[in-house]
């Protein structure tokens, strides 16, 4: 505006005449004002806003899905010969499979393996939102269930009954049939442990909330996190694999030192 009233040209421009730029500026101001007012007003109708963004996220997720997942899972996530249907698996399954790097699958094999995560947090969220929009399914767990502040003793009992036969009592993992395996649970995030229980990825059975209640799932996570935090009272845990690694250690170092001592005892002194 100052350009209109510059002292250099006070007479050249009368009050009735305005620069052509003035109308443009006026319109811009008007638009800004209305936009700002609308923005301020629409915060009160937050749900409408969220719906709009989630609609956008779903659309984004659909694009990501078509580009990265549809080859195996089908363009409408209906599944194909190479990948199961994802209708109804819910956001939890996507967050687990993509969030741990298992999906997209690197190659065919007995099971999808954990690897470097291929998507950003937002992309995973969009994919999850898209898959969740197809049909109702288990959603991401509430943060209050992931604080690892539950009852570790109860969690340990439930873990021994429901999980330890595959994942090993210390959560170190173990072998299944035909090259499949139950993975090591050390370092797995609380959310991914929870989502795995709810969705039953790959060979793992589903442990729904009627089987193991959300609070009990929290206890199980607490137990696993307790194991991670607490040093093994027995000293070197050797991967917590039980007789396999302990036997190998004893075989090599225990028997090895006995053999060495025997050789030394029976050798002639020089």
């Amino acid at each position, binding site marked *: 505006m100052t350009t209109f009233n510059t002292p250099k040209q006070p007479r050249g421009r009368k009050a009735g005449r305005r620069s052509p730029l003035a109308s443009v500026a006026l319109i811009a101001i008007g638009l800004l004002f209305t936009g700002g007012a609308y923005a301020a007003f629409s915060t009160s109708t937050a749900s409408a806003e969220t719906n709009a963004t989630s609609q956008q996220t779903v659309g984004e997720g659909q694009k990501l899905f078509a580009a990265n997942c549809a080859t195996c899972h089908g363009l409408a996530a209906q599944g194909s010969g190479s990948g199961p249907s994802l209708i109804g698996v819910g956001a939890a399954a996507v967050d687990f499979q993509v969030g741990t790097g298992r999906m997209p699958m690197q190659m065919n094999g007995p099971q999808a393996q954990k690897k470097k995560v291929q998507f950003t947090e937002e992309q995973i969220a969009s994919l999850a939102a898209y898959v969740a929009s197809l049909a109702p399914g288990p959603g991401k767990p509430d943060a209050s269930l992931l604080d690892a502040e539950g009852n570790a003793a109860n969690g340990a009992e439930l873990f021994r*009954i429901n999980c330890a*036969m595959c994942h090993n009592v210390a959560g170190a993992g173990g072998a299944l*049939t035909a090259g499949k395996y139950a993975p090591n649970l050390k370092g797995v995030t609380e959310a991914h442990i929870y989502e795995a229980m709810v969705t039953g990825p790959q060979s793992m*059975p589903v442990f*729904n909330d*009627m*089987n193991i209640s959300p609070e009990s799932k929290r206890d199980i996570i607490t137990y696993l996190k307790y194991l991670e935090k607490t040093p093994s009272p027995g*000293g070197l845990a050797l991967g917590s694999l039980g007789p396999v690694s302990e036997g190998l250690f004893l075989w090599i170092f225990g028997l090895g030192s006995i053999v060495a001592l025997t050789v030394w005892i029976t050798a*002639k002194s*020089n």
Partner: protein
Amino acid sequence: MAKDDNSGKDLTAADSSTVGHEGAPAGTAVVVRDAVANPGFPPHRPRVTDLDPSAERQAERTVYTLFYLSIVGSVFAIVAYMVFPIIPEDPGSVRLNNLFIGLGLTLALMAIGIGAVHWGKALMFDHEGIDERHPVRGTDETRTRAVEIFHEANVESGIGRRSLIRNSLIGALIAFPLPAVVLFRGLGPMDTNPSALLSHTMWKAGTRLAIDPTGTPIKASDVTLGSAFHVIPEGLQDLEHGKLEEKGKAAVLLMRLKPEDLNELPERKGWSYDGIVAYSKICTHVGCPVALYEQQTHNLLCPCHQSQFDVTNHCEVIFGPAKRPLPQLPIAVDSEGYLIAQSDFTEPVGPSFWERH
């Protein structure tokens, strides 16, 4: 050199190739004519400690230093016990306690052992020698004397003559272990046939399936597709006695498959409910809990010896040492929607026993 007094010889006197062959009675054994001759000992080689007095003193120092170290180790173990006590509620303290006591004891014992061996190898006399075994047969004189002693004992005690005393003593010796046999029998199952105990479990018609360990009954609608429930009979958690014994027989794994995935025998069609099947968790091989259920392949794997069971085909054995399929628990749904057993297992669960093969 030190040697015992019967037939120990020094190397110079050893001629072992002939020992024991002369005068042996002719038997059926094949006498090897071209046996490898005993090469005897290699020539004696003096040690450094035999030749060099300073090496000898060095070895002596090493030995007594090791023994002193052993004393230090023992004291260290005692001190470590006091300095690193086990604090309840702190598992880390157990580790330190065990580590330092163990180190002290290791030093104490290893130093004695190594010192003693080193002493024997480097300092004690090292002449090679042979100690022949005693002949097993006594001399004729000894043998005659032994027979005489037996005879005298018989005459003096009268055991051959006084037959009443002898026979009653034999009877008493036979009878005295009998109470032990009877008492030990009392430790075994008394009023029940053990094979009947092994053949039946806690499941009865109408017993609800409950979640291990809480005992919450399970509704059929709770068991979603792909689920695996670890199941105990309702009421097991309230048992006062024999809880583990009952659980050891009655433990069940409950799974839900797509009904079209199940290949059910016609006579067992009614044993499942809408794809929900219940099988004994006790392996028919040696009784480990079989619970490694793979929800995609529907295989059940036993972690002990890798027996695999195919849930879609009534848990038939598809791999491993188990001989029989896992017994199936016939299930149904009661009026409130809870899963119940139709009956006990129709066959004994678990591994073979003397009346089940």
